[in-house]
């Protein structure tokens, strides 16, 4: 086996990493790069546990009560949904996100509390349950209740 072939075989992984790094650098200069920051709706930020991004969007004027698009794979499998940020927080089982939303302008009326309780019935989380109970939620029958996270078509 020639020395050149041996050398190339040994350095090949590093050459691949170098080439990938060069590509990431070029795409970074063009505004992309490796795993660039996501462009998300408020509901998607909450669904992806990105509380900081959610808070930033609220501070920039996003309405914490307005339903937002959440792409397939984040809260659901096989279909997109449009849900309110608090619903995304409960569906993602994120008590910290729910707490943050409630502290920053999100409101929950009786009807919404019922929806949230039913989502929590499906996706149990003790932290979320505690917050909902503090807002007056009680165990209710969820049969027949259509949830925003359900498939609609």
């Amino acid at each position, binding site marked *: 086996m020639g020395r050149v072939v041996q050398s190339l075989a040994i*350095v090949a992984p590093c050459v*691949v990493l170098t080439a990938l790094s060069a590509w990431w650098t070029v795409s*970074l200069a063009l505004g992309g790069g490796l795993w660039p920051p996501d462009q998300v709706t408020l509901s998607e930020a909450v*669904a992806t*546990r*990105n509380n900081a991004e959610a808070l930033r969007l609220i501070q920039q004027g996003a309405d914490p009560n307005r339903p937002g698009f959440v792409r397939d794979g984040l809260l659901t499998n096989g279909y997109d949904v449009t849900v309110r940020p608090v619903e995304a927080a409960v569906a993602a089982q994120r008590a910290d996100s729910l707490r*943050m939303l409630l502290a920053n302008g999100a409101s929950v009326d009786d009807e919404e509390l019922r929806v949230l309780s039913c989502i929590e019935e499906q996706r149990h989380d003790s932290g979320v349950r505690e917050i909902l109970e503090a807002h007056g939620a009680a165990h209710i029958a969820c049969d027949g209740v259509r949830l925003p996270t359900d498939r609609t078509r």
Partner: protein
Amino acid sequence: MSVPAFENGMLCLPRMLEDPRRSRAMLLSLVVATLITIPLADSLYRIPIQVSDSLEPMVVARKADSTISLLENSATFSPTTFRPARYLQARWLLQLADRASLSYNTVFRGVHVALLVLLIALFVAAVRPREWTDVVAFGVAFPVLIGMHTFLAMLLEAFPVNHYAEVSVCALAVFVLAQHQPKWYVPIVASLLLIGALSVIESGVMVWVTVLCCAAAGMPGIRRSTVIATTVLFLGYLVLRHQLGIVTPGVGGHGSGFGATFYSADEVAQRFGAHPAGFMIYNVIGGLASLLLAEPRNGVYSLLAAWRAGEIHPVVTINILSSLASTLLLIWYAVMHVRTKRADWPDATRAFAAAAVIMLVNAALTAAYIKDEIISVGGVFYAVCTFIAVRALIVTLPRRTTAAAFAITLLLATNAALWTFRASGVHYQLRYDAFKTRNDWVEVLRENERSEWPNDSRELQLTRRLRAEALERHTASPSFMPRWGDRYWVE
């Protein structure tokens, strides 16, 4: 003065005869290092300033009335640590940001990136690729440097500047100086590096250790004057600590792992405080094993935990196999080269011996508790040793049978692939850390807990600004990164 080249009838100095391919080899290595480092620097720069470990010293530095008072008070901050430069750095960088109208993130993360670049530049200088064989060895050793878990520890943490990265830069700078012919300024530079390193963290002692190891290995740049100067300084440092009433942290001062479990500081004190010797021996062995075999991490053996859980993640297998293969290579080199008389050692063997002993001593610093950061200097020198050993093995290939050469090439290529995979995972872990660090700021200055906000206006103003800067720093969410990354890169 004798000039060997002239004595041999040559009318030029050896440097003038240098093969032009040598400079090409160095240039190519620098290009590789630069291309790999740029996106790494970007990944590092994206991490916001941390809440834990960073906010508190920054607040202390901001609230101090003057630099002198901060320096005086820094001796009283902890009964077991003496890190005056930690707070001074924070104060100076805050002032720099204010005067230059830069964001705090820009300045503090910029310093971290500068440390990364400096560390990599020094690594290239330390291994000095001069021939094509060196470039091949560099292609294996450089991913080892970056892929080593202790390297990541120098990127993830900040206090608010990563002191372990600073210490590694200082130690590597001494090592580079030791490789060259002695100069009058070496004792001064080595002393300044030691002072700088010791003033930020106790692990700065590794700079002194590096001086001693280089001298003991007979590296040309370190003369007796450097050893004496740095030893006197280190003794002075110990006396100063004693005068200030600062004691060495014992077992139970920090949380640490044992077996498959990580114990809090209180739990460590409860379990091992009465008879700490066994625990300390366990830690030192663990620190060395972590460097050589990638296990344990922070004292916890993931392999043991995986065995108990009945499932082993690929990351554990990849890390152990790659480290094991590299360590066997180092053992091969040591057996083949270090056993000869020290006086007969070529430069590479002297460098290897010094770097290997630095690793061993670094492991001893984990006696009280194990953290990846503590052995980060050892990790850097592990990569230096890997370069020397890989190079030596490649040089032997033409003398071997075809089958043996094929087997060695396959082994080196496979190991290089594993280390490169580990190195590429650093981006994933830095993104993850940026996401987590940014989210940590949401819990600071919460709107519904205004009663817990700081009363001091300077503290409140600083915290508000840091929080606002962190929130403005867009990061990638792990939800949009490959899900398999957790199993293959995160231990």
